[in-house]
């Protein structure tokens, strides 16, 4: 195997951990894996942001804006560091679909730890792309991540075409109109899945829509906390 990023050979080393239960094949080499940074230490309970406070200032604002809160909480795995930015750019914008596979095992592992209690009762919903954007990119990264999860999923949301979220300012994102439309209502708990949580606007808006249509609770699971 060669590393999907740097194309060096992925070295294999057996340790006590992988003696009886061998580890699955890694698609990134250890030096590239080392450049990915996990979120660690004290975090905001709401949005997974690294923060000393139990509730970060952003989340306090979200709570004051939308009452009662639409999104229960968000969980993310990685920091959005320089290497991650490059990785995501190649994966998402330059269409390297397979690169997403490198997140498969960690996305599954963390799901088992943090969402296990929702495993039976919840359904996973990927944040959709608009038709135009999907055509442009060829695949939906949120859809890809959703498929890694061991639970049922469906796509009740539809996105209206507009400016890319990453091209908008924070204020525009938070105050902008809801870019989503609901195709069907869901009566189960929902885990929204997306690649990145930046300001949380997208996820909160999607959650709002689901809650308003009678969904009991909405959580979100994102790969990266921006």
């Amino acid at each position, binding site marked *: 195997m060669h590393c999907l990023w740097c194309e060096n050979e992925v070295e294999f080393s*057996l340790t006590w951990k992988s*003696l009886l239960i061998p580890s699955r094949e890694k698609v990134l080499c250890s030096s590239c894996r080392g450049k990915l940074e996990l979120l660690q230490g004290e975090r905001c309970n709401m949005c997974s942001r690294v923060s000393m406070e139990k509730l970060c200032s952003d989340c306090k604002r979200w709570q004051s804006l939308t009452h009662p809160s639409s999104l229960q909480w968000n969980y993310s795995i990685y920091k959005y560091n320089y290497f991650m930015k490059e990785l995501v750019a190649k994966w998402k914008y330059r269409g390297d679909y397979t690169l997403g596979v490198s997140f498969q095992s960690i996305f599954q592992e963390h799901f088992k730890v943090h969402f296990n209690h929702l495993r039976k009762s919840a359904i996973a919903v990927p944040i959709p792309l608009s038709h135009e954007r999907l055509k442009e990119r060829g695949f939906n990264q949120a859809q890809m991540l959703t498929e890694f999860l061991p639970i049922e999923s469906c796509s009740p949301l539809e996105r209206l075409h507009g400016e890319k979220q990453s091209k908008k300012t924070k204020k525009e994102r938070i105050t902008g109109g809801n870019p989503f439309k609901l195709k069907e209502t869901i009566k189960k708990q929902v885990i929204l899945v997306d690649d990145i949580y930046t300001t949380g606007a997208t996820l909160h808006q999607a959650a709002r829509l689901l809650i308003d249509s009678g969904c009991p609770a909405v959580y979100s699971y994102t790969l990266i906390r921006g």
Partner: protein
Amino acid sequence: MKGYWHIAAFAAVSSALTVYFNNYWLYVGFICWIFYVYGSKRLRRFPLLASIIISLFFFEYLPTLSTPPQSSSPEEILTLTGTIVSQVNWTEKKVDFVLHSDSLDQKIETVSFLKEQANDHITHWKTKLRYGAVCELTGRFAVPESSRNPGQFNHQLFLAKKGISYQIVVDSLDTISCDGASFMDRFYRFRDLLQGFISQTYKKDSTAWIFALVFGDDSMLSKTMIHLFQRWSLAHLLAISGLHVGLIVGFVFFLLIKLGMTTKEKTQWIIIFGLPVYAILAGGEPSVWRASLMICLAVGLAKAKLRYPLTDVISIVFLFLLIVDKYIIYQVGFQMSFLVAFTLVLSKSWLAKTPSPFFVLLKISFICQLVLLPIQFLYFSTFHPLSILINILVVPYFTLFVIPTVFIMVIFSPVPFISTVIDFIFTFIHKGFEKLLIVIDQVAYFPWMTGNFPMWSAFLYYGLLILFMVLEEKQKKTNAFICGVGLTVMVMIIVARPYFSPIGKVTMLDIGQGDAFVIELPYRRGVFMIDAGATYSFHDRKPTESVYNNIINPFLTYRGIQSVDAVFISHEDVDHMGSVGYLLKDRSVKRIVVSDQYELKMKELNEWMQAKGEVIRIKPYQLLAIKGQTFHLLSPTRNLGTPNENSLVILTEFGGERWLFTGDIGENTEEKLLSSFPNLSIDVLKVAHHGSNTSTGAQFIKAIQPNDALISVGRHNMYGHPAEEVLQVLKEEGVRIFRTDTDRAIQYQYHGDKRVFTKYKP
């Protein structure tokens, strides 16, 4: 397959275990595991299929250890023709080698004991007996001896593990005629030549260490030293292994490259071709081959620009060696070497996390001792917890001083003055080390002993050990600690099992013509011996150590017995007390019980005094209670004339059965016993005087009415014991007879009202 060779090696190991234990569940377990790994997408289809095929192959390929049936006629004179297929080992007393006979299609161990006058001809014979030579020889052909007592070394099994099922003893070298030699012989002759040269250059002590550490020949080291190394789990230093080979390669690299003699490329080729040659010169033990081939393969792969993980390298070498010699799997050296090497490879990242070199050493020593523990118990019956610390001291000393020095000594052996100086310095320092080790052994030797480490507990042990290491690796300290405690407790329970066992044991050891009984009370409340005989050496005019070393000591160790509460010595004949001296030197003996008539020699008295045991002269009719067991002295009540007649006659009870130990008393004393104790009734009788016709009169047997009779007697003894009359008397009275010459050791076990005699089966 890259990255998955270790799974193929596991496959081979699971087949080997299945074949050895003849337990198919082990194989089923492996198949379940590998399919689980495949099913959870951790293994691709090719390594899965390859591993299963490999396991099936080894299933067929690996030999079972079939022991040949003991033939009724134990020996026959036979003339054989065959090829010498091993090194020829010369020691002062004997020469041995393995002969492959084409007509029998068997490997045969050939031994010839050297007579003193043969010394002049040895040089002549050394040029004849060579690897690959075709020989014709005549000798006594036999199935090798198996063990006759629990814990005793089983020569038959030992040879079976080398694929040898027969033995031939050649009386005189003159009956051997040999011709030719094979290519490999050149290496052995070169080795002989080097060894001869070295033994002339250096003093005997240095030579012994050079032979052991450079040529893999420890025959010159003293038995005490080897034993000491085994007791302290240091034996790995005596085997040439990764440590030595690594040092040699490092040294060669340094010499050739740093001094600019060759390029790196050439040096790599030198190593690839040179190391196998060294492996042969170093005696070709499995550990040398493992280390050498691993380095050769690693260097070769690096040259080919292929990057294989170390686990693959070690696994490929493992499979290769197994295919070359299928019996190698049964060799202790092979098992230990691979187990340790594999463990260290697995622990690489765990060790890398440790900053201080001292703790790295500690961790290496710790994990190696842990992983070897079941094997240590199985082969050496003892484990010493402090050996982990001793290793930390001794391993660096060997790595930094002893091993480099012995190689330097080999290199400088042709240079007169320097060699003498190095010899002097080495002997000076190393003598100090040997003394220190002996002192440590005297002060701090508190081993855990048991020869009984059952298979299920070995599996449980390794399961816990792996779990412990996984938790340690994940830095889950608390859980790892709990697991470590579990591991320790488990080993302690196994060692302490006799103390929990409600079953009492009386063992009549088969020491040949002589008596030795070991009594273990239930819950190990007390341990007693009645007699500890030895064979007498007419040459040295004293009892030989062999019965103690080969039978009594291994048995006591196997049973985890470190101290004896009392030794009863029936009388002063060597076949009843010859091993007592050795026992006192080796183990703590609290009491020595003899009769009033026992004639104590000065030498004996000194030995007994030094051993700090209490000497009890038991009085006639005295009831002696030790650790809750009551011994009743029935005889001698006065001097009855001869040592034999003056034997202790002891009555005691085991599990409600009355036992009578009679030493070597004759019919006279038997009659006296009957007149003093007319109502004497016995369940188990130790038949007096090895079943001689001077004892065990019909009157006596009719009167005491035993159910079982124990006869301790040597096979083919020159006295014709046991006498036909005695056997006849016992048979007529319906007494069940157990005798060591035909039944081997006899063990009596009692628990509540359950009592059972068993004959030892090897």
